[in-house]
């Protein structure tokens, strides 16, 4: 068994032990799942994507995608993906990785003046659970990866449908702990990583939602038989299955392209956009079907379903909402013209 599979299985067992309704409920009330996080840290998952030479596990992006899918499958209320990716970015840039929880954000709107960073980062996931924040900021000819200590930032807590912590982060002349030069495309490349992270989480959560719906349909009796025997329910669940399949494939293909274009961030934008858009669509339709099958029980706190659907609804909107990505991708395609679409769809090298 290879390392990625081993880590994945360990993580699955850990989540099975820790991530139940109580854990999710507590996290949504603002209680940090410290035991869960420290178990995850003990597995060395923080540095899973860091090269072995730099003390990490050296996993590839596609392997990371499989791990993120598991966090989605359990709606694990910890920023594992955020931390893994932030650490990977730091390691690639040669910046030492600090302890604790890390998050990252799209830094394109930030201003850099004499090395100090100014600006507002809207709705950063888990900012107030994290010690440090990673962004790429600066002009095209001097874009730098910056590690910021969140103690020197204001975090304004927000509400969201998902109810995991989200904060507006305001930087007022913040001085990074460390910086390193990075290609200009990294700023949008980081957004792509976030979008892919959410895409994989959606795929994982959506398969779980399907399983919940199938279990419920096989259990719940109406009119003298399980509702799963009714053709109308069967046809709906088949549609849900198709969305799950599409989400799984689209997210995996997004990470594959990321792996293939190791040369630089921001080069796998097409596949990232596809993953983001398709997974978000799948989430929308999938949640509707799962709730319809579950009936009233599905919208109550007595059932697990909504812990997944609420996050699916939220994840669709993060790291660039589905509408934003669709617009970006569509504009690229239109500007290229009709006869460039097929070559784009069949490109086998994202670099």
């Amino acid at each position, binding site marked *: 068994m290879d390392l990625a599979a081993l880590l994945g299985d360990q993580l699955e067992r850990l989540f099975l032990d820790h991530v139940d309704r109580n854990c999710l409920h507590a996290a949504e009330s603002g209680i940090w799942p410290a035991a869960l996080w420290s178990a995850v840290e003990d597995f060395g998952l923080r540095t899973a994507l860091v090269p072995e030479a730099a003390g990490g596990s050296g996993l590839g992006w596609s392997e990371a995608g499989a791990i993120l899918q598991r966090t989605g499958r359990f709606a694990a209320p910890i920023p594992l993906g955020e931390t893994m990716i932030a650490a990977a970015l730091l390691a690639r840039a040669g910046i030492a990785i600090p302890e604790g929880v890390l998050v990252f954000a799209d830094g394109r709107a930030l201003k850099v003046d004499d090395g100090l960073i100014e600006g507002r980062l809207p709705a950063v996931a888990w900012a107030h659970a994290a010690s440090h924040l990673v962004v790429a900021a600066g002009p095209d000819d001097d874009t730098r990866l910056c590690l910021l200590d969140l103690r020197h930032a204001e975090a304004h807590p927000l509400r969201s449908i998902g109810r995991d912590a989200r904060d507006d982060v305001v930087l007022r002349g913040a001085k990074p702990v460390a910086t390193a030069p990075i290609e200009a495309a990294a700023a949008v490349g980081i957004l792509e990583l976030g979008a892919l992270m959410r895409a994989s989480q959606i795929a994982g959560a959506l398969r779980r939602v399907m399983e919940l719906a199938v279990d419920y349909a096989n259990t719940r009796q109406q009119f003298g038989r399980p509702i799963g025997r009714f053709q109308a329910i069967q046809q709906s669940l088949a549609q849900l299955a198709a969305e799950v399949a599409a989400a799984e494939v689209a997210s995996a293909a997004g990470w594959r392209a990321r792996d293939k274009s190791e040369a630089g961030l921001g080069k796998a934008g097409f596949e990232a956009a596809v993953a983001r858009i398709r997974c978000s669509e799948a989430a929308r339709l999938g949640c509707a079907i799962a709730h319809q099958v579950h009936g009233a029980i599905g*919208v109550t706190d007595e059932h697990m379903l909504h812990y997944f659907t609420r996050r699916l609804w939220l994840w669709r909107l993060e790291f660039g909402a589905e509408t934003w990505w669709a617009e970006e991708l569509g504009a690229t395609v239109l500007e290229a013209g009709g006869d460039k679409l097929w070559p784009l769809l069949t490109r086998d090298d994202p670099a």
Partner: protein
Amino acid sequence: MAAAFHFELCDLPRDEARALRSKVRNFLNDVSAGWTIADRARSWTAFDRDFSRQVGRHGWIGMTWPANYGGHERSALERYVVLEEMLAAGAPVAAHWIADRQSGPLILRVGTDEQKREFLPRIARGELAFCIGLSEPDSGSDLASLRSKATRISGGWRLDGAKIWTTNAHQSDFMIGLFRTAPASETARHIGLSQFLIDLKSSGIEIRPIADLTGESHFNEVRFDAVFVPDSMMVGREGDGWAQVNAELAFERSGPDRYLSAYPLVPPMLDAIGKTGFEAQAARDVGRLVARLATLRAMSISVAGMLQAGATPLQEAALIKDLGVDLEQDTPRLVEDLVGLPPAFDDPGGLAAATAYVTQVAPTFSLRGGTREIMRGLTARGLGLR
């Protein structure tokens, strides 16, 4: 099959409707100053006894009932004007809505004179909140499988069992509950059900609010442990409960609450798109939304006209519910597409929060009053599919 469904257009009575609409609008304008978009999105799940009493004082509850029972002897179509204005404004109507829409009309139709005198005037004043006890833990859409039972005892009935998904039970004064008064037979599972007026302060009743995914509680589980109900509180005839409940459904499925649940998102969405500089495609989406709204309103008023004329347009009501629910469920996505939504927000009353709320409750739109699948099955039977 040509008679499977038929809609004749119905005109609201023009002069009366105009005068009434203008009064309701003025009232709502006055009281709505502090309502946020998210408040309005809650509308008929928002329970506000003060508001309901004000509505009662204006004569807008029990509008069609006889004056001697506290009613106002207006037509069902005038009542329609009040209902749709309340919903379009997102008024907090939950404290009188069910009593006005279902419980009161039921009592008026099949209740005793004593029941009418006791309950209808208080309902019409906006003082009595009702809930409806139908579903049970093991029977959702399949009402014939109900098991909660009423046992005849001296002077009345003893109720045992449980109801679930009872909207607003925890805030209501009375429930009209459906209980089994005789065993079901294999061939006629619908027989032996009867309705009772149950004072929710009776001993033996335990009401447990069920938290929902929004963090609020509208549903309840209501347990009955040897609850006494006097004979005088049976509603209608013993064993007729099933037929009585079904007659209510045409009212429930075709009203403006079956397509306006998400309407309070629409005006702020239009404002957020802007009066100028919008894209042609955004205009198209808005145009299509408005076409669906306007058509559903004409369909709903058509059914109101049939109900006013004494018909029981179950087929037509089912079609409205199917189309109305689709529209309501599509609305949050439209906001996302045309306005854009932030993943998280700090204004709990704003459009983003309101849309998040509607996204979460929208799944119930296609459940209440019979699931989408049940509605479509009813339509299919009407079409003569066998």
